[in-house]
């Protein structure tokens, strides 16, 4: 039997220049027994229904605690949303924080936001210009450049995304430590280095937190329940 290969109409313009999907990460490390048991226990408890839209309260409380302990940044658990990996967090941030037609200033590796920026209709630039709406930085970016841009951000209305996922630099620096910027900083992180197949990330903080949560919910409603319970155990014991 021949199956359909081509739609009778053209595809949307936006998809024609998106990259082909990457191959999945192979050979992930084995999970600790306590994480496996936390997942199995959650299933035995019947944690198979929608969770709270922003994520289970225990995980959101842990994220807030972690940010306070590691980075001395205060975030209310109500400002935390658990996402399907950091990929979803980045896309949601791009959607709401980068105005179509504006530019995203990214002084370092932009490979993780290129596709989302394309879908949203923004350009990625690596130097200052007038139409910037969002500053995207990572701990691995050259620190002096980041600090210089953050100083400049104080005089602007830029949103700031600080993406901790896959970071190799673990210094306690965080842009939200600056009170002039804190309400405009969204922190992104994930457990993908250890639990990539579970699809767990989060976005935390900023005065846009509730709108970011609503935007995530409109795409995937909530993040996989059993993943959240497994991830909570990983976070509590390994980070």
């Amino acid at each position, binding site marked *: *039997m*021949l*199956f*359909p*290969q*081509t*739609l*009778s*109409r053209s*595809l*949307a*313009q*936006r*998809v024609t220049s*998106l*990259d082909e*999907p*990457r191959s*999945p*990460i*192979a050979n*992930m490390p*084995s*999970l600790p027994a306590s994480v496996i048991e936390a*997942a*199995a226990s959650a*299933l*035995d408890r*019947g944690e*198979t*229904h*929608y*969770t709270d839209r922003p994520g289970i309260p225990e995980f959101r409380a842990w994220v807030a605690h972690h940010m306070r302990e590691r980075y001395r940044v205060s975030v209310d658990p109500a400002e935390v949303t658990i996402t*399907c*990996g950091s*990929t*979803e967090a980045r*896309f949601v941030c791009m*959607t709401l924080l980068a105005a179509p037609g504006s530019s995203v200033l990214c002084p370092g590796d932009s490979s993780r936001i290129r*596709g*989302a920026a*394309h*879908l949203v209709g923004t350009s990625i630039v690596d130097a200052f210009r007038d139409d910037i709406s969002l500053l995207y930085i990572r701990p691995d970016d050259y620190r002096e450049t980041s600090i210089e841009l953050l100083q400049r951000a104080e005089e602007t209305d830029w949103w700031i995304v600080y993406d901790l996922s896959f970071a190799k630099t673990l210094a306690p620096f965080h842009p939200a430590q600056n009170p002039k910027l804190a309400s405009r900083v969204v922190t992104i992180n994930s457990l993908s280095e250890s*639990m*990539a*197949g*579970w*699809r767990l990330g989060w976005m935390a903080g900023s005065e846009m937190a509730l709108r970011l949560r*609503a935007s995530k919910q*409109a*795409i*995937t*409603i*909530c*993040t*996989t*329940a*059993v*993943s959240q319970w*497994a991830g909570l155990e990983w976070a509590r014991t390994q980070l």
Partner: protein
Amino acid sequence: MNLNANPNIPEEVRAVAADGTQLRYALMEIAREMDDVIALGRGDPDLDTPPHIVEAAKAAIRDGRANPTPVKGMDDLRAAIAAHMRQVNGLPVGADNVMVTTGGQEGLFLAIQALIDPGDEILVPDPRYSSYDDAIQRAGGVMVAVPTNREDAFNLEAEAVEAAITPASKALLIVTPSNPTAGIVTEDRARAIADVAIRHNLIVIVDEIYGKIVYEPWRHFSIGSLPGMAERAITLDAFSKSYAMTGWRCGYVAAPANVIDAMARVKQVTTGPVATVSQWAGLAAITGPQDCVSEYLNIYTERRAVLLDGLDRMGFSYGEPRGGLFVWADSSSTGIHAAELSYLLLKEGRVLIFPGTAFGDQWREYVRITMLEPIDTLKEAVDRMLPVLERYRL
């Protein structure tokens, strides 16, 4: 019916009820802060995921089979879904025509991103599942309402579809069984609609997430199975409702291969692959025994009878609910705007239902009530709602 029409309604209620579409979420937040609420709002089955599915997921976790998969999903699962859709739905699809999605809602989001350019019109039956609005608006699509009506049990008419078509029309979105109306698109109507779609070269996106929950004597019918539809039908489904798996976030899409490729490119940069453990659960669901599906359908059939009896006692009327997990009830006999009514029933009756205005601004005399509680709880919900209605009814 307008807000402020009923002098019996307290001012506090008027203030909350003014924003009808957002009220659905506001009501859920209010309910969360209250004790002993009977939740007949959200479409989350109270039944548990069948044990054989849970055990399959646990085995995968314990065996270390949780590495990330390709963004389209596990090959075995895609092949199994294709086989299931060929056998059950009559769709001419292979594994290349299938991708796994993070629930049914994401399937719609990906399809819209892959298909709709700014300014393209997409025909949407009214009332509609308003959670899809966001996906259409993100893509710059323009929703065009296609009317349905209670006398016809909210079955979609080909003539109404054709009347709404303009040169900018690119797609028709069907949800069958419908959320919120519980109507279905019957086979005869589907055939007529397919003729219209082929003549006007329309894409048909059809959400069949409630397709396994259809009540006797009615039957689900997949419009994508008709001749000439394979190259224009995008069929969405998920494990969430039929197998009580909402928290696993696992759905799927069947479409021409170039659409699947495009959706995968979008998914790669927006959410990534579905959680692997959920895919193992989905594989167990679709290849394992299907008794659970018919068992759950029997449960919903009994509940539906109880709920309809209760609505009769409350003086609500309705088009025949032919499928899905809701009743879309006409509450005009109360003389209370649906938004105000939903708030009153929550605050004073401790029963959460959703106002019709959450599914289209003009549905001020309708409410959506789920049957996702046991029979005794449904009876108690009716007993709680009756005195509230008597207190405020005009």
